[in-house]
């Protein structure tokens, strides 16, 4: 059990949160797999000191991950657990949905352009997380403002859309340069 004095100010968590052991084991297995790959993913140079070996720091750091992950799992394992380990794992997986939309948004920029992609992304994401009505308009307006500020005013380096090639010559430059 954690042992903070009651009158002592503290903001750090006490007890074991759900998913802590799952996380430790995930990290432990990844580190072990990377350690197993050490001989062919790093080089040992003959005649060099240990500190100058390209293998030294990867081995040290991965060894550290393994040691601390094991110690962490053992010590946290002694604390009262909060049930719901797999539910937490599922929450981590659920977050991948938003990453998927985000990747789609980025992939769409060189095709439909930053303006259209951003306004669509903001509106769609607001819709997806449950907003309706006027909030969707706010989301679209936010997307528009982002484009106007960063691309049109600040000239941030973001590629123009292939769709802009279809525009008439006079409009094409403006679209490519500002949107």
């Amino acid at each position, binding site marked *: 059990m954690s042992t903070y004095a009651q009158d002592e*100010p503290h903001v750090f968590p006490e007890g074991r949160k759900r998913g802590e052991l799952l996380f430790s084991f995930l990290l432990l297995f990844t580190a072990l797999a990377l350690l197993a790959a050490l001989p062919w993913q790093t080089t040992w140079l003959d005649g060099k000191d240990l500190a100058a070996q390209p293998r030294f720091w990867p081995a040290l750091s991965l060894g550290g991950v393994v040691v601390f992950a094991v110690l*962490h799992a053992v010590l946290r394992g002694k604390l009262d657990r909060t049930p719901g380990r797999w539910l937490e794992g599922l929450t981590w997986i659920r977050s991948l949905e938003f*990453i998927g939309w985000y990747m789609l948004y980025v992939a769409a920029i060189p095709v439909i352009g930053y303006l259209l992609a951003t306004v669509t992304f903001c509106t769609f994401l607001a819709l997806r997380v449950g907003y309706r009505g006027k909030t969707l308009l706010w989301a679209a307006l936010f997307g528009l403002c982002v484009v106007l500020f960063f691309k049109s005013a600040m000239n941030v380096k973001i590629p123009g859309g292939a769709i802009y090639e279809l525009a008439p010559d006079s409009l094409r430059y403006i679209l490519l340069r500002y949107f």
Partner: protein
Amino acid sequence: MELLSSSIEIIARWDVLLALLIGAIGGVIVGGMPGVGAAVAIAIVLPATFSLEPIVGLTLLLGIYGSSMFGGAIPAILVNTPGTPVNALTTYDGYPMTKRGEARRALSLAYSASFFGALFSIFALMLLAPVLAKIAPMFGAREIFLAALLGILLVIVTHRGQVLAAAMLACVGIFLQTIGIESAAYTQRYTFGMGWLQSGVDLIVVVLGLFAISQALILFMDKDSKIKLPEVEKVGFIAQMKDLWVYRRIATVGSSFGVFCGMIPGVGEFMSQFMSYSYAQRTSKTPELFGKGNPEGIVASEAANNSVPAAAMIPLLALGIPGEELTAMMLAVFYVHNVIPGPQLFSGQMDFVLALYLCLLLLNIIVVVFLFFATGKLMKAMTIPNRFLGMMVLTFSLIGVYSLRNSLTDVAIASGFGVFGFMLKRLDYPTSPIILGIVLGKLMEDKLRTAMARVQDPWDFIDRPIAFILFLMIVVALVVQARTVWRDRKAAKADTQNSREAQDA
């Protein structure tokens, strides 16, 4: 005097002043939005600063860094939710004061204590600067290695209750910096034959993933809650500032803790706040009121955390060693412009260093004046629903990560770190050890290699005064940590025994 006029010349430009204004006001706004914070804002803005001159880019980032904690006090006091993690202690006494109908007094104390802390720290460091300029060149490869090692160690041991998690994550960070072609013998490490891994893992991409994308995911998974904003009465500027005079002792001691902790890599705001808060409680005439709305608690916490940013610039500028994630991000600005912070910068370009401190001084004046007049408007930032804020953060994060190289691979890597950061945040694990592991790991590898080439036996490594002092500090940190673990275990055993006896009885 010549140095001062040279420094003023560096910052007396419209672009520097504009960056200062945007950074200061932007920092207060993001600080006032629980769920955003300075780290997210700096991660997003960072790539945009690469096209600016170092002084302009750094001023912008410093503005956000230095002012976010001012803004973070607003939701901490008014709605019991710290705007930035370092405002957590402010909720202990700030919110009870709001419930008693003293919201304006609590806010005024927070602003004036923050302002005092920041000024105290800037002036202390301006006075210390000549001394530091003399000491900085005494740092060779072995001293910088030991200072970086001390930084990593302290960032681990100061995460009380999470020391093993912090150690594990610091090692992850050190491993990440080893990926790619190393710079000494040009061999490949963990590239798995893939071209995109040869240049290694970009710090900016990791930062954007760990701080911005992960935060967006956290906000998406959160529920929107209706925030009822309390009434905040209007009081004159001078009347508000006067209240701090009563608590000048706590403000001074708290600021001193902030300067001390800020100068030591890896320690920072949390430790200074705890030390300051504990001191204030111990020496108070009404210690029983701490946590129930004691103004001394607000002063102790805010003075300590706001005196850290200026002090945290010391190890960064003098030794090239960032003390926490925000200064680690700033280090990227230096590297992009090929300005290497370290003893040469501190001893050779003191006017540049002083210019940064002058910027911090101006920044605090702008922020405090802005806050006294715009708090009412700023309170509205707290009412933005969480998931809408998540959408905003995710949209902004694209600008940071995609504008670097227009690379879909960068976005994919940042997204991967976003999910990793999301897992860490859900578990309440710290993210700063990863960033410091990446930055300090690289430094340690380079400096150890250089130092070992000149070392015959282990004693040679610490035979210089500064190296020996740093070594002693490392030993002391380890001994103190071992003692803490031993005491905690002893107390835990006593707890268990007591509860068993109670059950038996």
